[in-house]
């Protein structure tokens, strides 16, 4: 039986004490254990940033790739072997900033991946510049007169792109988050969980208390997760109330189901057939 301990890493954790990521890490482990996945049955792919370090602090297969490119690497891994259980850890800068184009197109491509965005509304690892999700008017060392760019609403953008599983979690609510991760992993297709993750060092506006005051579970809101319009309305909300939970879920054939080339099984398992190649070449030499 898989236990939480199987996921314990010996590698020294490098996050700041009190960081919201310490809520996400156990939720991940809880979800994996509940899924009965052993560490060697899981592949984590991450970008660069504090969020990107996550895989080091668990015990499992991982590739900690380039800033912004985790989804592309994860997509390639799934093309090669769509039986892999792939979970992606990214940050708000990593995923919506540098990696914005891959975010858009990964949703369109709809490979069976689970994306966890540790959204601390700040660039943590590079010490506190605004990210795409930083609230308007917040000041930083670079945005010295306050952020003027419109904040990026990841869930709304994902919905506008046709995403089939769109959710929000909060690092301060591990149990809910663990359940969301499980639901996302069970969902066949691309699933997004944007996770509110307080950065105790650089974001003094969106603190644990700030989030706690605002989060409401959509389960309490009489919202039907199959209702796109209502989901979009909730996804655009930000301020007094911040909806969490599964905002939208919709079943649809994923990339693999739609791809005739993948129908005979994962590419990794497809045998090399020298005869077939030789025959094909021979034919080219005939009339």
């Amino acid at each position, binding site marked *: 039986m898989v236990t939480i301990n199987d996921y314990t890493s010996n590698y020294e954790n490098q996050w700041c004490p009190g960081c919201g990521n310490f809520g996400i890490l156990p939720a991940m482990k809880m979800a994996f254990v509940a899924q009965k996945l052993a560490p060697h049955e899981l592949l984590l792919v991450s970008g*660069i940033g504090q969020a990107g370090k996550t895989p*080091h602090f668990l015990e499992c*297969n991982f*590739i900690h790739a380039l800033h912004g*490119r985790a989804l*592309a690497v994860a997509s390639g891994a799934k093309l090669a072997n769509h039986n892999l259980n792939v979970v992606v850890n990214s940050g708000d800068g990593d995923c919506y900033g540098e990696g914005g184009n891959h975010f858009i197109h990964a949703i369109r491509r709809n490979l069976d991946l689970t994306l966890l965005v540790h959204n601390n509304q700040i660039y943590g690892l590079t010490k506190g510049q605004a990210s795409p999700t930083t609230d308007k008017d917040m000041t930083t060392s670079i945005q010295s007169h306050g952020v003027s760019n419109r904040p990026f609403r990841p869930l709304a953008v994902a919905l506008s792109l046709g995403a089939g599983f769109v959710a929000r979690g909060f690092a301060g609510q591990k149990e809910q988050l663990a359940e969301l991760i499980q639901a996302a992993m069970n969902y066949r297709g691309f699933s997004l969980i944007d996770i509110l993750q307080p950065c105790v060092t650089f974001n003094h506006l969106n603190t644990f208390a700030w989030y706690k005051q605002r989060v409401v579970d959509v389960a309490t809101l009489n919202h039907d997760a199959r209702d796109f319009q209502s989901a979009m309305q909730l996804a655009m909300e930000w301020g007094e109330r911040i909806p969490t939970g599964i905002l939208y879920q919709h079943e649809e054939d994923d990339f693999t189901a739609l791809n005739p080339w993948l129908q005979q099984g994962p*590419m990794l398992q*497809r045998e*090399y057939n020298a005869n077939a190649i030789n025959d094909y070449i021979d034919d080219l030499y005939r009339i």
Partner: protein
Amino acid sequence: MAVDITVKIGGQAGQGIQTVGDLLCQTCRQAGYFFLAINDYESRVRGGHNFFQVRISDTPVLAPAQEVDLLVDLDGVTYTQHASELNDDAIVLCMPEQNPAGHRTLHIDFTGLAKEAGNKAAQNTVAAAACLALLGAGKELCSKVVSQLFGTEEEKIVTVNQKALQAGFERVAQSDLKGWNLTWKEQQPAGALFDGASALALGAVAAGCRVGAFYPMSPATGIMTHLVQLAEHFPLVVEQAEDEIAAVNMVIGANFAGCRALTATSGGGFSLMTEGIGLAATTETPLVLINAQRPGPATGLPTRTGQGDLLFTLHASQDEFPRFVLAPATVADCFYTIQRAFYLADTYQVPVMVLVDQYLVSTSMLVAEKLEINPAAIPASMPKPPAKPETYARFAFTENGISPRLFPCQSQALVKATGNEHTPDGHSSENRENRIAMVNKRLAKLPSMKQEQRPPLLHHEQADWLLVSWGSSYGMVYEAVGKLRSQGLDVGLAHLVDIWPLPQEPLQSLLSGSKWILVEQNATGQLGWMLRAELGVEPKSSILQYDGRPLEVARIVSETAAKIGG
């Protein structure tokens, strides 16, 4: 007498001159002739001036000719633009309103005859028929080829084109022009038709490539189009990425997961991939990347050819790591080189860059030799994980720098990798001694990598003068050497195909001993710079062509002769 005839057909983009070429090439092939055809086109979809030029011979040809024997003007500007290339006894086929004074001429109302046959588009078949008739081909063979080529289309299209063929033949018969009396006996073809792009795609399949990811970019797109076609026959998934950054990272992900994977790009696309190359390098994930060069800087000349990326490819991506740079010499060599690329990438767990160019990928020719699978390049299955999986370290220090590579989720052993500097077990590390050891580990692969490298292709290497060239220009430089020697000049050839890492011998001895001339398709002589840096050798002179057009044999011959005082 030996057959060596060059036919050039000029027309607008979208006019379909490729059809003329296909008809000519297929007929030649079925009559046992060799040929090599180049495509010259602009970066537009309709209009402008394009041409297709095929050289037909009874012995293998590896280079286009500069002199044209038969010119077909379908756009009204071909003759004006190419008159200077015509041989004295050349024939010009053109529309009635044109007047190519001073050349043997046959006026043909291409579109008129095509319309009579049932469709204006069949003007290409009229033109091809006239060419074939002038070359002495039998109508029966030609008619068979028309049926084969249009066989997948509707019945009506076949009929129209058969009529157009007939019309073309008749037009020639009516004239009193004397063409060429080649023998056109239907016989076993001397080989198969490939262009560089199809040879690369097929070679990738022969090497067990399972995943392709790319973003469209001339002239690399054709490689992926061919790969898509092969996916109908072999296990293979080809994905069009949102950009080149995604493409290279997808290929890294696929390789990391255990599948051989390929990407191909050019110019700006290659620039965008440079960061990914470094990720492959430091995670020691195999990566095969084709850079099909085109002239730059920036967008440059998108549909033309050049060799301007050599030094960039050698150093692309921040900091230092071992890599292979291979540059196939011919269309057939594309097939073999890409197989070796996969073998080398897997064996050394390093990025392998294959440098081709627009000329090589889009040149189609009869490849006489039968292409064979390279058994060494067949992918091995994953090595056995250690008995104690927890002892597995993806980046374990070894004498030759190569660590045992497993695939994630394929055993109990955990595969951990990062683009940060890392310890043997794949975790990020800031440690100083570890850093030094890891840099050394990666660079330790170089000596054995050098051992893998093919020596340059040598011809008359003891000659007084050597031409030194690389990659796709082989055919042209080789032919130039033959011509120079037949002029009594003692010239040989050293042509590089495996560019990096560069083994010192035999080049060191050859180039320090003799006088040599650099022949490259760039403006600054990049190979020369590299040879100076690596071997301390100095060319006497260089022949540099950077106009975006295929290297010209005639030019190499005349410039070499002038330089060596021949």
